[in-house]
């Protein structure tokens, strides 16, 4: 079972903690909002991602199990 990270862009307020704690997958854009590298998390990345998600002041970083996504 693989995991991935996702940002809720409505909740995100550009605190930037995620890029500190998961630099291997997240960089900040010129306004401080996270840009995520797509794809499943590897090795220690899952642990780092979970720590980053817990540290996000607005709970905008989500660690999700990979699943088929619906759309409308």
């Amino acid at each position, binding site marked *: 079972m693989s995991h991935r990270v996702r940002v*809720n*862009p*409505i*909740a*995100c*307020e*550009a605190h930037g903690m995620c890029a500190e704690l998961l630099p291997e997958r997240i960089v900040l*854009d*010129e*306004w*401080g*909002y996270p*840009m995520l590298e797509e794809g499943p998390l590897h090795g220690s990345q899952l642990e780092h991602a979970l720590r980053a998600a817990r540290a996000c002041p607005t709970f905008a970083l989500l660690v999700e199990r990979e699943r088929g*996504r*619906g*759309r*409308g």
Partner: protein
Amino acid sequence: MSASSPTILETRPVDGVQPPAPALPRLLSGIRAQGALSLDEHLAVHGPLPGGGGGRRRAREHGMMLIAEVERAGLLGHGGAAFPTATKMRAVASARRRGIVVVNAAEGEPASLKDRTLLESLPQLVLDGAIAAAEAVGADEVIVCACESADVGIESVARAIEERRASSERLPGLRLATVPGHYVAGQESALVNFLNGGPAKPTFTPPMPFERGVAQRPTLVNNVETLAHVALIARYGAAWFRELGTPTQPGSALVTLSGPIAHPGVYEIEHGASLASLIRAGGGATARVRGALIGGYAGSWVGAAQLDGVALSNEHLAPHGASLGAGVVLLLSEAACPVGETARLARWLADQSAHQCGPCVHGLDALAGTLAELAGGIAGAGVAQRIDRLASLVARRGACGHPDGALNPLLSALDAFQAEFADHARHGPCAACSRPAELPLPDRPPSDATSRDRPSRA
């Protein structure tokens, strides 16, 4: 604003015997220049909606058959995204909880009049489509969502609902809600959020409306024109529907034609009809044309040199980087400055952001600023790279499709009007820059305006 009187484009001769006729008009059959068709008049044109009756199990079977028919018809949504209608219907039908049908006629698109035309002129066809869809997915409630500015359409639908109730058919609950007029209010999740008592702003998905929508119930949100097509497919079937259009985009579409044209208005075309035939049906262009914006303000520009070959279906438009979207064809006259128009549109689109997602708020604002500098000839070197970079920072980073949609007309304008942009970058404003703007960019209420749900009188 009221829709101008709709006109009908006939791309094939009418045989005399109908319905069901393969030829146009379909949706616009029997339409009057003024006023709505009554229930009796509507039934005289199309006959009664088949199905209904029998027990719950029978209704369920009938519903599944209608969904299968819509799937065979290949009906795609007419709100802009061209998503397969049957796929959405099946999702709501197969959910455990009872569904709700939301008729989306919010039409925040300034260059589109087709949805309000349907509300104003053919409200019984609109209700037919909603009722057929409700039966198909097993929903017991229908909410018709109209833009608060569509006052004639709102009156017309309210009257149509009363007429339906008086005819004492077996009906789902029918109500009317007026929604704020801002651009993103018609986005599915924004509509659902509004109907649930929140602001008409997009929400983070999933859950998608078909999973958890109005009152937490599975919700079928379809554009009003899409449902009008469902009303006809329920009567005449998938094979009839496919007699017009292309294999991948069957059927007809309502198109709002505007700009320097003798008779601007709403036309019904066959998917794949040439742009030239639409312009002829509109009485011809009244000025030389510099380009056409196809699909609406989330659509794309096609320059004059390419316009001859344009046909109005998504597969025909794809090589031009365009799609039919919500059925908008807006011609820009030779007298207009496409650079100035693009800069103004960019600012308007930035202002229409729901101001929820950082990349949309900052990115569209920065793009609008850069395009204004470009139009003024003060952008400096490296402006093309700056625009590319901003576009990549905006794309796919919003909760809704607005930032991505906004990129379409801005980036396609840079392509379609290369010479004009290069000229402005070097020499600043041109002679045409001081003429009045052509693109309609209405003042819109801020996106946190809270027009309330207005249940229709029982």
